[in-house]
């Protein structure tokens, strides 16, 4: 049973990880990255590493995407500013 769970978690991590790379627009990438984080959490959970899973929950689904989004927003300001 656990083997099946581990396999599903790792395969979904591979699939969603590829999806992150294929989503070329950074804005979309930031959102798909959050989903990738959830599959990573499942994998750590399946491998019985609750400490790492907890870190992954808070970092990849809550911590990282807002930082990417805010940085993108800042870069857009600079681009708009230089084009004027």
């Amino acid at each position: 049973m656990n083997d099946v769970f581990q396999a599903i978690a790792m395969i979904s991590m591979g699939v969603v990880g590829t999806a992150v790379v294929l989503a070329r627009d950074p804005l979309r990438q930031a959102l798909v990255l959050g989903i990738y984080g959830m599959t990573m959490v499942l994998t750590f959970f399946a491998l019985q590493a609750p400490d790492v899973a907890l870190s992954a929950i808070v970092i990849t689904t809550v911590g990282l995407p807002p930082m990417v989004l805010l940085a993108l927003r800042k870069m857009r300001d600079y681009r708009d500013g230089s084009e004027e």
Partner: protein
Amino acid sequence: MLFLPSAAGLLFLLIDGLRRLPAFGHYPGPYGMVLNGVAVTERHATNLVSAVNFDYRAFDTLGEEFILFTATTAVVMLLRNMRGESEPPSARESRKEGASDALRAFALAFVVAMIVLGGYVVVHGAITPGGGFQGGVVLATGAFLLFLAGETLAMKRLAPNTMLEIADAAGAAGFALLGLGGLIFAGVFFENFLDLGKPGSLNSAGMIPLVSISIGLEVAAAFLLIWSEFLDQALLVRGEE
């Protein structure tokens, strides 16, 4: 021309290395087994990951904590208000547009719950999975939900930047001081110098809960500080120079 032989060599080494990896789920190292045996009796901590991070290998964690501290300092320095940038007067009283009532109600309902959960994860680091780092980010998330609810200024009131900077520095310094305490009272840097208590109870595992709390403080402040600096940037307008 140089690339092909190099790639072939790398491929050979990779395949050779992969072939000799231990089988899936097999751990050949001796230290994990030793720690599994001794950590509960030696440190009275039932969560061995915390025992390793905050006690046996606390010096490594000190380095990691200062990486975060340095990175936060760099972000704050790089994103400070530049000449020619000023806050638009409208940003002062703006309740951010765009947050629907459903999103606001949902986010606000979770603020207190997230902060309580974060505190729980921080103080129970030595007993159950979790610890200062995880709990610290959960704490920061609690305040960040206020921003999601569109209450940017309420988030600033709950956690003003000056307070965050002080908390960030106090957390980092507290951790280093605990290490120095070991040096002074027990003779070795990060040696435990506190009462170990009863395993499994909240007040146990010597200095591990204290280390956990100081890391939680530092991490929560660091994350909020980075978010809040970027948010300030989003509210800035670039004035004419």
